[in-house]
């Protein structure tokens, strides 16, 4: 959950809770006040009726008249049973409004002109009910307004306060260790964010230093390795010219030769991988994929023939990309070489170019490497100890470098490699 959503939700919960409880308290206390007011008015008026009985009042059963906007009734009774003020609520049908209305009634039994009577004063609760209704409505409206404002302001302040934080996050997100550009973090007036920037800058410096050291180390070591390898290689070349070598010696020499070359290739491949990692191929030119494929296929022409592999080229569309031609060439070379080497006698190779992708389909045995491990360094078939296991790692690295999407699948003797260039 996003921080904004979380804080908004938090605020909303609190606001709703406060508004709910506040509303209930407000409603009941307001009603209580209104009731109290009505009661006071009724008692007041009762005193007036007792002290100044209205003129021409008749003691009738159904007499009903208004006195001081209050509905009153004076009924004769046999004897005074309840000499106290007695309140009760009742519903009467209102002829004008044509509906039942609630009234608060104050009864009082007393002697009037020497006769016991029951005075009933009733006051419509319509006004106070309406008032409560309006007030409640307004309170609800205000609450809604408050909530909307709360959400709006929260959003606004969130973006304002956290703006620099998100800028920093963006910088970190695009952070590339091999980038030579200085990182630019936005200054903020919030000290926590400045602290974050400082910590990140410190970390960046340390990583950069480590990275630089590592890069130099790799470059130095790989160059230093080439010299002794060159010596071994040339010495073995000389040794092989010797005509007095017997078979077992020849085998030893061949083994030395093979392993020196393996070490040299390993070194070269690792340097290549390190260089791609170090972003040392910034130059781009227009590369014709079809032309490059054809070049490599020509290079392997005789081998394809010798394995009796049938080659189908289906160039539906030309593909041109902007990249380092050398890297693309290495990538295609490795892929095509694999499709030939891992193929079997009388197998097939299909090279298809679509508008933005290259598909390479070839026959071959089931790989004993899982698909996830296939592009990892130093994974190789168990029956090929002399292979470096770096070919596909290099391919993957180059694809990643140029953001190509590479997919591999194997189904019933067919290996399919698809590269999406765009």
């Amino acid at each position, binding site marked *: 959950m996003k921080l904004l959503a979380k804080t908004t939700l938090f605020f909303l919960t609190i606001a709703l809770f406060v508004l709910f409880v506040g509303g209930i308290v407000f409603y009941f206390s307001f009603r209580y006040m209104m009731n109290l007011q009505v009661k006071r008015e009724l008692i007041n008026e009762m005193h007036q009726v007792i002290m100044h009985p209205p003129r021409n009042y008749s003691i009738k059963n159904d007499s009903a008249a208004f006195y001081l906007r209050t509905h009153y009734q004076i009924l004769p009774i046999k004897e005074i049973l309840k000499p106290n003020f007695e309140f009760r609520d009742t519903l009467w049908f209102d002829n004008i409004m044509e509906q039942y209305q609630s009234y608060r009634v104050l009864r009082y039994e007393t002697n009037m002109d020497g006769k016991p009577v029951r005075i009933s004063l009733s006051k419509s609760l319509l006004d106070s009910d309406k008032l409560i209704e309006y007030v409640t409505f307004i309170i609800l409206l205000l609450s809604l307004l408050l909530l909307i404002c709360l959400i709006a302001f929260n959003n606004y302040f969130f973006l304002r306060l956290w703006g620099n934080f998100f800028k920093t996050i963006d910088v970190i997100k695009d952070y590339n260790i091999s980038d030579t550009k200085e990182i630019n973090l936005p200054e903020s007036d919030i000290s926590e964010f400045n602290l974050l920037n400082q910590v990140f800058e410190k970390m960046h410096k340390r990583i950069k230093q480590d990275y630089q050291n590592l890069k130099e180390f790799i470059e130095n070591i790989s160059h230093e390795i*080439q010299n002794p390898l060159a010596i071994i290689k040339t010495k073995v070349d000389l040794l092989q010219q010797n005509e007095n070598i017997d078979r077992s010696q020849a085998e030893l020499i061949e083994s030395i030769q093979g392993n020196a070359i393996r070490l040299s*290739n390993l070194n*070269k491949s690792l340097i290549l991988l390190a260089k791609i990692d170090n972003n040392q191929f910034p130059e781009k030119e227009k590369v014709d994929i079809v032309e490059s494929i054809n070049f490599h296929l020509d290079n392997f022409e005789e081998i394809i023939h010798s394995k009796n592999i049938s080659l189908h080229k289906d160039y539906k569309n030309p593909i041109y990309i902007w990249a380092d031609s050398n890297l693309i060439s290495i990538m295609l070379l490795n892929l095509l*070489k694999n499709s030939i080497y891992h193929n079997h006698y009388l197998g097939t190779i299909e090279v298809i170019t679509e508008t933005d992708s290259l598909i390479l389909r070839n026959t071959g045995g089931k790989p004993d490497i899982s698909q996830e491990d296939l592009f990892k360094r130093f994974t190789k078939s168990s029956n090929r100890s002399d292979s470096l296991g770096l070919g596909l790692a290099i391919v993957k690295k180059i694809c990643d470098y140029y953001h190509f999407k590479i997919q591999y699948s194997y189904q019933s003797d067919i290996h399919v490699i698809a590269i999406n260039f765009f």
Partner: protein
Amino acid sequence: MKILIVEDELELSDSIISYLESEGYICEHAVNYDSAIDKIILYVYDIIIVDLNLPDGNGIQIIRKLKEWDFKGGIIIASARDTLDDRILGLNSGADDYLIKPFHLAELNARIKSLTRRVLFKGDNTITMNEIKINPDSHEVYIHGKLLDLTKKEFDLLLFLTINKDKVLSKESIAEHLWGDYIDSADSFDFVYAHIKNLRKKLIDHGVGNYLQTVYGVGYKFIEN
């Protein structure tokens, strides 16, 4: 033909000299920038092989000096540096070829021969070995005057064998010569074998003597007799 080798690794220069002397070249050796310049001033060389990293300077400086002094021979850079930038810098400063360490001596020999043809003997470039006549420019091979149809790789292989005739060539050096870098040696051996087989068959079919011999456990040898 006189060759100067500028290389600070003594063991490496010893091997190079020993191989090239067996090819009939006269070799001299300079271990650093100063001694190389001294030798260049005092003697005349046909080909100079320069390492780029020298203890007291850079091979590029030597090449620039040579060009300044109007050096007529060929220059080959032999360096462990293999970036495109290094190659471009080297070739732009006036070198004729760029060989990346570690290399096979047969490869160095082939480069020297090719350079000799290109730079020193402009004109008739054909290489002749008994009944085989090779024209490296037109990529044509004639056996007893008759054109032999070879694929590009077979041609390259035959040229490489002829240039390094009477020398044992390992499968590795042949593979490297034919396909260059970034190819696992394991793959290339089968490829080399297939090529050798095809080439041998074509040569024998055209009545060429059995010059192409297999040296057990090592590789192949092209014998002139």
